[in-house]
């Protein structure tokens, strides 16, 4: 089943094509990353999905519900963590969450209160439950936004740069929680500028540039297609000619050799021993999403 579907979605702001025909499918249970530089159109796409912005043309659906025609079911299926930190200064954390549940038609009950406590506990906010929103730090407010997005138990969760301004430790806590939700069957769509996070967490990635999708594939395929595993060495003296022929790149003092897997390491080293090469420094670098990103964006 398709959890999120967008078909040729277009949105113009004046002369700017914020979305220039975006089509993508996110399947149920996927952990999907939407990457792209600032201004690529990620937030605009999320806004059209959430019904905060109307697309000029094209169609969007969440769990099979059209976001315009079946907006009630579509919105019930969707939890959005917005990019900007917003809060209502009139209320405490707990009140904020109770109201949010209420807007989705969930009445006050012991079960709801237990779920709110569970959310707060998972987000390390339990001790702040009765504090006014104004008294929270930026990172705490952002975690309240995460709790707000989840309070109606949506099957599809969209996080727009959820870790911006959140410290390392809490980022880990947050991701551990989101990962558990994903394992429990929730579909996750995420935007982030921390590419290593996307690489670790997401099974599939779409990259956007100027309102269009420029690459979309599984994380493994993207890494294989645009990035490599490399054995690099710094040696004393010159690299002998037979090895120069095999060298794929030289960057500074490093001589780089692309390898497909670790079985190729030993033959390379054996050759170096034979040529009496004295290795000063050596490392194997893994394929890396940052490299993929830079290559895709410069195409």
């Amino acid at each position, binding site marked *: 089943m398709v959890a999120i579907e967008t078909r040729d979605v277009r949105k113009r702001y004046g002369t700017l094509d914020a979305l220039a025909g975006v089509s993508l499918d996110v399947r149920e249970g996927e952990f999907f990353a939407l990457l792209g530089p600032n201004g690529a159109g990620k937030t605009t796409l999320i806004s059209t999905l*959430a*019904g*905060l*912005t*109307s697309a000029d043309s094209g169609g969007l659906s969440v769990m099979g519900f059209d976001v315009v025609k079946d*907006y*009630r*079911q579509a*919105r*019930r299926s*969707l939890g*959005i963590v*917005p990019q*900007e930190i*917003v*809060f*209502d*200064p*009139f*209320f405490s954390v707990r009140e904020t969450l109770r*109201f*949010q549940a*209420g*807007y*989705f*038609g*969930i*009445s006050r009950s012991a079960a709801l209160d237990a779920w709110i406590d569970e959310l707060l506990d998972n987000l390390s906010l339990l001790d702040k439950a009765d504090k006014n929103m104004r008294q929270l730090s930026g990172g705490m407010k952002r975690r309240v936004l995460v709790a*707000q997005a989840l309070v*109606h138990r949506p099957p599809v969760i969209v996080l727009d740069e959820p870790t911006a301004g959140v410290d390392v430790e809490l980022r880990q806590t947050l991701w551990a929680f989101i990962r558990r939700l994903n394992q429990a069957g929730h579909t996750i769509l995420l935007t982030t500028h921390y590419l290593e996070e996307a690489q670790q967490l997401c099974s599939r990635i779409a990259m956007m540039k100027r309102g269009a999708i420029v690459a979309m594939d599984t994380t493994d395929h993207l890494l294989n297609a645009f990035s490599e595993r490399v054995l690099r060495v710094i040696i004393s003296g010159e690299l002998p000619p037979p090895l120069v022929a095999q060298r794929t790149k030289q960057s500074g003092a490093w001589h780089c050799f692309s390898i497909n897997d670790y079985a190729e390491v030993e033959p390379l080293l054996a050759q170096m021993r034979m040529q009496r090469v004295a290795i000063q420094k050596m490392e194997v670098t893994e394929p890396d999403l940052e490299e993929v990103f830079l290559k895709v964006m410069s195409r």
Partner: protein
Amino acid sequence: MIGFQTLLLKEILRFWKVGFQTVAAPVLTAILYLLIFSHVMSGTNAAFPGVSYEQFLIPGLAMMSMLQNAFANTSSSLIQSKITGNILFILLPPLSHWNFYFAYVLAAIVRALVVGAGVFLVGLVMAHIPVHNGAWILIFALLGSAMLGAMGMIAGLWADKFDQLAAFQNFIIMPLTFLSGVFYSIHSLPSSWQLLSHFNPFFYLIDGFRFGFFGKSDVSVWLSFGVTTFAFLCLSAVTLALLKSGYKLRQ
């Protein structure tokens, strides 16, 4: 239904939590008007035979306070949520334009009635106020606060900044309230002004409301009822159309 109830409760709590500003302050303002005007104007010809100026003034002031506070409630709530961005919290859930309309307008009515009751209770201490027909009093109180609640929604949706909202308030709401006969009977005005007053829907709200107390009015209470109901329905239709189209909420 729960979604609507929650939004209504939120809108009521929003003003109630700062009741000192939203309820106590307007009541105090009305008391000041009452003290000053009844002192300055005491002995002036009463508008209706057998009705003192003070008696005449109190229902007018109560209605004026209700109108201003109903307007303030919806307009300030909307513009605050728009400017702080937390309007998002009610745009993401599956709430319909009817849900928005009724929740905001009902909360405005609640605030208006609380403020109006406050002014009226203080008025009771200062003068004897007869009640000729409680039903008309209630009808005009509800119509007036609902009408201004809807107007506040239109203004709150339209305005992008607080000063635009202030302009709406100063150039539309204030003149209409002050020229509606709160402080005088329009019969004491030159005839051209009298004519102009008949185009002011607030005049009918106040005139009809006074009828509920004194059984006397400048125009027929049924005319006032008709005009204000019509104005209320028009404003509501505009509000609902704006909400449905997502005007300035969902671009």
